[in-house]
């Protein structure tokens, strides 16, 4: 499975993920002779080093070069958003680097291929399931479905109208089919669509493509996949603790597309 990010430093590498969840400074953050982290447990030598973004002194770029010279550098770097220090260090040290990746979808120990040339990564140890999720809006409120507590994925959670894409099926066809199956609401063409986002659940990465349908009225008739529905404002959905991770944010982006 290929997840698209952005190319920062070219080259291709594969390795085991070591993750650090805060902004990271190479200066002071790592022992260059061993690759041992000083700010957390673990060693980055030969690993795919995943952290949200760089920080600290510009000397950090040369620390990365020093790691490369000592053979203790990471084989690749993945960031949520690249800044200049790590970007500079990765390029001068020929370490492949990709950014604009949601680092929450990666786990310590994942085997990941990083393609710094085309700006993509692939998680080899995760299963990948393509899904659609549709926001049906009527008069400023969105249809939210309650999943049963016995559901295999996201039990008890509150979600949009969601389901897997069948082999050979387009995402938009899957969206219309799921809406019909789960709510009996007929829809035509989607009003808006987002680039897919990803949600990690154990060893599964869910690819979610979100559609927006704006209707004048709708009368949901549920099938056995859901136990209840409600119409919420985007703010209410944001405040709902049972909302599936990423869904309120995706709805926000969907409604704010220019």
């Amino acid at each position, binding site marked *: 499975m290929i997840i698209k990010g952005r190319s920062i430093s*070219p080259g291709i590498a594969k390795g085991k993920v070591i993750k650090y969840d805060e902004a990271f400074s190479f200066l002071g953050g790592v022992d260059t002779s061993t690759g041992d982290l000083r700010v957390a447990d673990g060693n980055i030598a030969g690993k795919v080093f995943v952290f949200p973004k760089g920080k600290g002194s510009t000397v950090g770029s040369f620390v990365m070069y020093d790691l490369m010279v000592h053979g203790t550098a990471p084989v690749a770097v993945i960031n949520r958003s*690249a800044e200049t220090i790590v970007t500079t260090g990765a*390029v001068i040290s020929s370490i492949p680097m990709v950014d604009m990746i949601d680092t929450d979808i990666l786990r310590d120990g994942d085997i990941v291929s990083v393609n710094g040339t085309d700006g993509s990564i692939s998680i080899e140890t995760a299963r990948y399931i393509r899904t659609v999720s549709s926001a049906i809006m009527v008069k400023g409120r969105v249809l939210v479905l309650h999943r049963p507590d016995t559901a295999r994925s996201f039990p008890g959670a509150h979600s949009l109208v969601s389901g897997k894409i069948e082999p050979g099926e387009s995402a938009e066809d899957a969206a219309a089919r799921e809406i019909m199956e789960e709510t009996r609401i007929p829809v035509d063409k989607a009003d808006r669509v987002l680039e897919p986002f990803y949600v990690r659940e154990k060893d599964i990465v869910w690819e979610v493509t979100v559609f927006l349908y704006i209707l004048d009225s709708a009368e949901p008739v549920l099938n056995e996949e859901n136990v209840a529905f409600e119409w919420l404002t985007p703010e209410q959905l944001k405040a709902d603790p049972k909302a599936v991770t990423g869904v309120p944010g995706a709805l926000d982006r969907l409604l704010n597309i220019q």
Partner: protein
Amino acid sequence: MDLTREEESILIGEKGAGAQKAMELVVALGKVYGAENLVDITSAHLSGASYKTIGDGGLKYLEDMVAGGAKVSVLSTLNPVGMDRDRWKEMHITPEFAEKQLRIIDLYGRMGIKTTCSCTPYTGDNVPKFGDHIAWAESSALSFANSYIGARTNREGGPGALAAAILGKTANYGLHLDENRKPTVVIDAEIDGSFFSHSLLGQAVGMAIGGRVPYYRGIKPTLEDAKTMAGAMAASGSVALFHVEGTTPEASKFDVSGLETIHIGKEEIQAAYDKLNTTDDIQLIALGCPHLTVKEVKDIAAFLKGKKKVNKDVEIWFCTSTSVRDQCPDEVRILEQFGLVLADTCMVVSPIEGTFQRTGTNSAKAGNYLPTLCSQKTMCRDISALMEVVL
């Protein structure tokens, strides 16, 4: 990013591995900042010159660059290094440090960079013209070039500026573009007009506005005043461009009506002063951050002429460039009766923490960096007040 055919061919390696690496870096940094294309530059000024700051990783990087045949294609100068290349023993520098530092200077020289090792290249070695696109590192120098000269540069890092120097191009974003050079805040300044008050003004403004573009009213800075303000604002904030009504070349272009106005007067200057003064008892007086100009050397010599250094326990460093030192031999002789007139270096990038713990300076920029980069307590005063300690 929109690259020309020639830029693309460099990126895929058709002009050699060194140029390819440089292009990869310029393009990657351009992406980080959302640049749409590259722009030709007329000069570069590089930081990352002191062995103290770049370490063995930086040294090896430069070795590899030179081994790969890297050469700059535009006029390029180098920032101060960790020691005077001839007088390092008098600065308490170890032979191990000196050997590596001299090696670094040599490596930059082999790439075609003028190893003048000064943070004020705009006074002679590298003088951009109004409107020139340049790729400068060294926060005080680049802010001076943007503001007082009207050249155009972002805050480049060492390797990024070197890559730009090799290609003669840098990513076109930020302060290269008209829309980002507009002032965003008006500073209504009320100071006594001395050199030192300009340094404290820069300190107070950097503390107040971070990285915004200030438009000053109420001051008429000389080159020296602008130099110390630029250094202070870049250290206490991250200001890379400022305008001064009636003084800097772009100021008259802008309509500042409606902008937020911040008054900087006695109270703010006192707060800046208090922040920079953490000791009354010093072991070293270090002047020349940024490097002393000819005028400053002459002024200091005039002040010291006929006086006698009584307190021999306090060392004095006058930091400047080789060209300034060579231009005023008579004044240098006077200064040498009080301390060392050093070229190539300054108290911030030299490993002074091996010898000193408490340093006096007339520079707000140094007052910011001495505690963090050199573990010093600081006394920040004007020159006559500093000299009272030894006279």
